[in-house]
């Protein structure tokens, strides 16, 4: 009787085979060498601990990526808790009430005090561009992981929106909501940091 081919797991080869790829995967997502190294290490340790649970249904590579991705998500969750107070209603599921009136005569219009101004023009000034970039990076990192992941997948790996949805397990209408909110929140974040 033939057996179904199961994937095997060889921890002794992990560093040689996967460590650079995993490191790049983490680096793209956290933008910090030291942190990316630590996350790879944590992922390896978790994988070793749960080795008995490895059933061989997926390849060890896929399995390691999943573990690393979860480590990155955990990292961002812990950051979000720290940042939550600094970044306006990041987990607000209510919608965009913060930016737009949602009822009455002015429904759908910009809430007073939140109307866009032209501060972004600084990005065109050679002297101010670097600072603008720096703030943009900070604000990108403050977005919930899934949100910023959308931009990384699009800009870095040029995933189609269909692929992004599949990877992040969201519907396409969710994707549009996330992108819209992410842009609104980032503008608010950059503006606040720029003007202070």
């Amino acid at each position, binding site marked *: 009787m033939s057996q179904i081919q199961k994937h095997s797991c060889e*921890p*002794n080869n*992990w*560093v040689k085979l996967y*460590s*650079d790829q995993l*490191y*790049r995967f983490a*680096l*793209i997502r956290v*933008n910090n060498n030291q942190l990316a*190294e630590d996350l*790879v*290490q944590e992922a*390896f*340790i978790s994988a*070793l*601990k749960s*080795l008995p649970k490895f059933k061989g249904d997926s390849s060890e590579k896929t399995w390691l990526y999943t573990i690393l991705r979860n480590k990155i998500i955990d990292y961002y969750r812990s950051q979000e808790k720290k940042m939550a107070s600094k970044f306006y209603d990041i987990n607000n599921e209510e919608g*965009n009430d913060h*930016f*737009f009136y949602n009822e009455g005569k002015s*429904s*759908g*219009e*910009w809430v007073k005090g939140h*109307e*866009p*101004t*032209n501060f*972004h*023009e600084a*990005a*065109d000034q050679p002297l101010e561009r670097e600072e*603008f*970039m720096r703030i*943009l*990076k900070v604000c*990108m990192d403050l977005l919930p992981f899934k949100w910023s992941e959308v*931009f*990384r997948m*699009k*800009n*870095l790996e040029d995933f189609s*929106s269909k692929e992004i949805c599949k990877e992040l397990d969201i519907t396409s209408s969710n*994707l*549009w909501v996330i*992108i*819209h909110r*992410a*842009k*609104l929140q*980032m*503008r608010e974040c*950059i503006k606040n940091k720029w003007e202070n």
Partner: protein
Amino acid sequence: MKKLMHMIMLDCNEATRLTSIKKYKKLSLMQRTQLSMHLMACKFCNQFAKFNDVVDDLMEQICSNSVNEDSKLSEKKKEELETIIEEVNK
């Protein structure tokens, strides 16, 4: 007439939504027309659209600068990891 205008004109919430996603999703002709009409009439959403273009560009740069094919884990870290794996996997 007012009702008709309402059907054709986007509100700012919807206009910024279309602006935000246009790099990711091809808008329909109707949506593009509605959006450009709104942007002509509304200086706030017009500013938002300019901000959006700047940020889309810069994000692309930031993402591609952050990592390249040659980014590798340091040799020191690799040795550390080898040791850890050996230890735990005894």
